[in-house]
């Protein structure tokens, strides 16, 4: 019993120690952000690497998620004769929840893992040490642009996911199942609110983008510089950021929509 408590305590201490180190790391990186204003190209390159290169998986996934929503939503709504509300159902599901959450999970798998592996390999091949020896701070030159790039790219990807998803739902609902075209769009237009729905969705995707990118760059920078260490760090990035996204989603949803 005592042994189990000890193990649990040690596990907890290690987690808190990593959280502390991650927070200190974040503060150091944030201190390097103002310098990026003079060199926006560094951040834009990372928006391309993390955002544009993730577009294919985001668009394809968004399309299919929207199509499935259209199909499932129609089957339920038609029982109540409310199939004209399909547009609202698809749009609200995507904008409030599925857009930010699924885009963040895909972002963690596609861009987050790539960030961790890239930074981990830079550490293993002494590129970060070489920068330090050239009096160039790797936190400002390598990590800060990647953090900012991911932070900017993620809300854009979530918006893209939701937009494509709506068209997926439209294609199935209106194109294949015969829902009225005008009702689909007009109900969506009247029921989806800018502040309550869209803005809250954007806030979620901004938070998710920040957390996923933070975890990814920290795991890369903190990795044990061996092939096994990089493999573990990449796995931790995907697992931890996915858990963080799902946990934060509940917290944010409760704060935004819960009546507490």
């Amino acid at each position, binding site marked *: 019993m005592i042994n189990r408590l000890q193990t649990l305590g040690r596990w907890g201490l290690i987690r808190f120690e990593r959280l502390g180190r991650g927070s200190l790391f974040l503060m150091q990186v944030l201190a390097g952000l103002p310098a990026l204003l003079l060199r926006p190209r560094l951040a834009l390159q990372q928006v391309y690497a993390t955002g544009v290169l993730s577009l294919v998986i985001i668009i394809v996934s968004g399309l299919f998620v929207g199509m499935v929503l259209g199909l499932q939503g129609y089957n339920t709504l038609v029982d109540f004769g409310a199939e004209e509300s399909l547009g609202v159902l698809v749009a609200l599901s995507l904008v409030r929840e599925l857009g930010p959450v699924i885009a963040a999970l895909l972002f963690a798998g596609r861009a987050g893992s790539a960030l961790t592996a890239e930074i981990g390999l830079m550490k293993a*091949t*002494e590129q970060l*040490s*070489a*920068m330090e*020896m*050239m*009096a*160039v*701070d790797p936190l400002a030159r390598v990590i800060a642009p990647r953090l900012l790039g991911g932070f900017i790219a993620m809300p854009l990807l979530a918006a893209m996911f939701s937009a494509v998803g709506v068209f997926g739902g439209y294609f199935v609902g209106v194109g294949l199942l015969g829902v009225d075209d005008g009702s689909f769009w007009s109900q969506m237009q009247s029921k989806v609110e800018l502040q309550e729905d869209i803005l809250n969705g954007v806030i979620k995707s901004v938070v998710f983008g920040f957390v996923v990118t933070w975890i990814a760059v920290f795991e890369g920078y903190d990795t044990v510089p061996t092939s096994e260490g990089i493999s573990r760090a990449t796995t931790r990035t995907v697992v931890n950021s996915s858990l963080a996204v799902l946990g934060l989603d509940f917290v944010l949803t409760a704060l935004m929509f819960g009546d507490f």
Partner: protein
Amino acid sequence: MPDFPNVANDPLVKIRGLRFARGERVIFDGIDIDIPRGKITAIMGPSGTGKTTLLRLISGQLRPLAGSIVVDGQPVPQLKRAALYQLRKRMGMLFQSGALLTDLDVFDNVAFPLREHTQLPEMLIRDLVLMKLQAVGLRGARHLMASELSGGMARRVALARAIALDPMMIMYDEPFTGQDPISLGIIVQLIHALNEALGLTSIIVSHDVHETAAIADYIYVLSGGKVIGHGTPVDLAHSDSPWVRQFMQGLADGPVPFHYPAADYAEELLNNQPGAAP
């Protein structure tokens, strides 16, 4: 310090009573080293003696437990980050792997420190980079990516990058390891020529006795956390110390035994009973 070599009156790097440990393992146990200006000084010793660690201590990437490290009059462990970075602009380091930035081509790798630390116009940077690449014989390879270079070429590009800001000293971390004879000859000649032409101070960390002795002005031999010998290559070749002789002549047995410490050989073989531990 009675044993202190005192090889220079005004050394560029002055190390006194340096102690450093990794966990329980003591790497340096009170060593004194002087690196004279304008010379090539070699730090030699078997693998695992902390030669690379010494370079990281000199460059301030690691902090010692005790002792002082003074580079050009500045106490490195006490320097604040900004002052340390200012000092590093005047130090070059050649990593064993080259450590080139893999997302940049050869030209941009050499231009990297110039672009980071100067406001020079791109035309001038181009000329400077071409001059540095010409010095290492790779001006024609400027459009190649780091992944397209051989190990020897990568080290030469890294050398061009290390001299980009015209430093006062260069530290070479195992520059001869894993090189074919031609690349080896080129690197040996380059280190010597650059030191002469640019008036640099060079520190070579190596365990390749012949190549290092051929170009070093002074050699320190480290082992077991101590300086076990120092002197010119000729002095060390005729050293009375069995330890230094074993290292310089590459003898398999000597003060550093061939066998890892173990129980008596005959006893272990005779005690081989069924069920005994292997």
